[in-house]
């Protein structure tokens, strides 16, 4: 076979398809492991395939919603909670990446190093917090535990602070220019 006329030589890289397939795989694993309802499992897979084909539809977030539904209909469990924290984060990161990695491109593996480091950092904070929250709930069985209220309140407060910060930075950028 004749060598192609034009080639681009890069460091070790993976195809764009790998990122899309990884997104489908993560959503499918999450749906089948965390959602006991068969119908919702297949809805999640279909949404993941849609997101892989058309990332701008954000359909992978629908897949994440299917995982949340599965969590709500199941009994709370520390292992499942830790897996859900891992998978929802992975779905979000892969969705963000598929939005900016165009079809037909190659992704140099070393370009993904900051993504992997950030992923590990966030998980290193989120997983112990999840364990603490779940253990706190286990201590006070049957009622809305202090851990739920404290955790929910903390997340809402954090997001409120973040939104205020985002508004400030946006207005500062507008003033600059």
């Amino acid at each position: 076979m004749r060598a192609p006329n034009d080639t681009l030589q890069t460091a070790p890289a993976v195809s764009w398809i790998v990122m899309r397939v990884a997104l489908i795989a993560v959503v499918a694993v999450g749906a089948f492991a965390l959602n006991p309802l068969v119908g919702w499992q297949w809805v999640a897979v279909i949404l993941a395939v849609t997101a892989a084909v058309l990332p701008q539809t954000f359909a992978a977030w629908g897949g994440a919603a299917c995982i949340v539904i599965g969590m709500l209909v199941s009994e709370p469990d520390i292992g499942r909670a830790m897996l859900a924290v891992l998978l929802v984060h992975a779905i979000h990161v892969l969705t963000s990446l598929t939005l900016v990695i165009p079809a037909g491109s190659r992704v140099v593996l070393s370009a993904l190093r900051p993504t992997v480091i950030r992923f590990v950092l966030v998980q290193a904070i989120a997983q112990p917090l999840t364990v603490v929250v779940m253990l706190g709930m286990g201590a006070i069985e049957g009622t809305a535990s202090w851990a739920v209220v404290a955790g929910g309140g903390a997340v809402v407060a954090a997001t409120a602070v973040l939104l205020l910060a985002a508004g400030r930075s946006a207005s500062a950028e507008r003033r600059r220019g």
Partner: protein
Amino acid sequence: MTRPSMPGRWSPALALAIAGSIVLAVLGLLFSRPDVVAMGLPLALWSALALGRGTSGVDARPSAAPRSSADGELRTEISVESDTEMVELLVVLSERRSRRAIVPGSGSGAAVVARSRVLHSGPALPVQVAARGLALDGAVLATPSEVVVSRRQVAPTPRTAGMLPLPRRLTGLHGSHEGRRPGQGGDFRDIHPFAPGDELRRVDWRATARMARRPGELLVRRTHTLSDASVVIAMDTSEDLGEMVSSWGSGDVERSGVTSLDNAREAARGLAIAAIDAGDRVALHVLVHGGRSLRSGSGARHLARLEAAIAATGQARDDASFRRTPHVPHGSVVLVLSTFFQGAAAQTALMWRASGHRVVAIDVLPRLDRSRLSRPQLIALRTVLAERGNVFADLHGAGVDVVTWAEDPSSALREIASTRR
């Protein structure tokens, strides 16, 4: 001059992460489920990191540097100057196909090498590259950079042209061709009575003893002078037609095969080398307005200039007008390189011939491959080739020799050189 750093913009991923973390927290509170609340934790943390980072510092500036090329291949090293996490590169290779790559931004050094097979001689754009900085898993997007272009000139393969025809009258004073004027360096011309200005060493004593009519009369032995010829190469760049007729007008340089401009550049280089080797002066004119012109000159340095100019000669723009009257030194051999589909080059050749120059029309159309042509296309091709035949007949009638470069140009040129018009 350094370009000011432009802030990037947020992708929808950030808004989704913030909204998702809030929704999960609210759902967790409503259903008394801390595990659902915990699912929003990584999204909240990720959003906090994103907002803490901001949208600045994502500019990316690509550069393309030519590297030493192997035979038949152009290599270009693409590097990116950026402080961001990753950079999206859009690379157009030899104007034929585009490739995209996501490469690391900061501290990566040069990582990408573009390779393009050389299919044609002449000016080439092996790489056109634009870059866009990305940060935070693609949540921050920079404005795409300007397109950086790497230009090269591919010299045609040298091909021996052999002997070139000479002008009817040699006017130069130095060279290797024997002229008709008396002078030095050439073969025997005649025996002539001594005249003021003749060198005494030229006196032929035996001829004087035998043929002198009066006492004191001296006869000198005269020789022809040696002269150089003036060669003008005129390139018509209005068309670039490949050997695959079905690719004409498509711009498909991969399927076209050898093109008329490939042949024209090869012919121009071969003719220039042959003329300079023979000690002649060579001028080059590209027959479009604003086209390159090199004045007459000789020697190795002038040949290097000619080769560089020939390698840089590409197809003229569609709207470029034909230049009909470039200056040609008196008593030149004019070699007109064209496909002669358009009458302008033939008219210019006829005009030069009418001015008394010796003109050779060099047909640079490659051998045509008529496969994949429909019947109407075949008829159209036959029509334009017949019109071209008429043009050649007119040229023959006016005393312009015609040489087909795609066949055996050296023997055709030798044959023409041996006949003096």
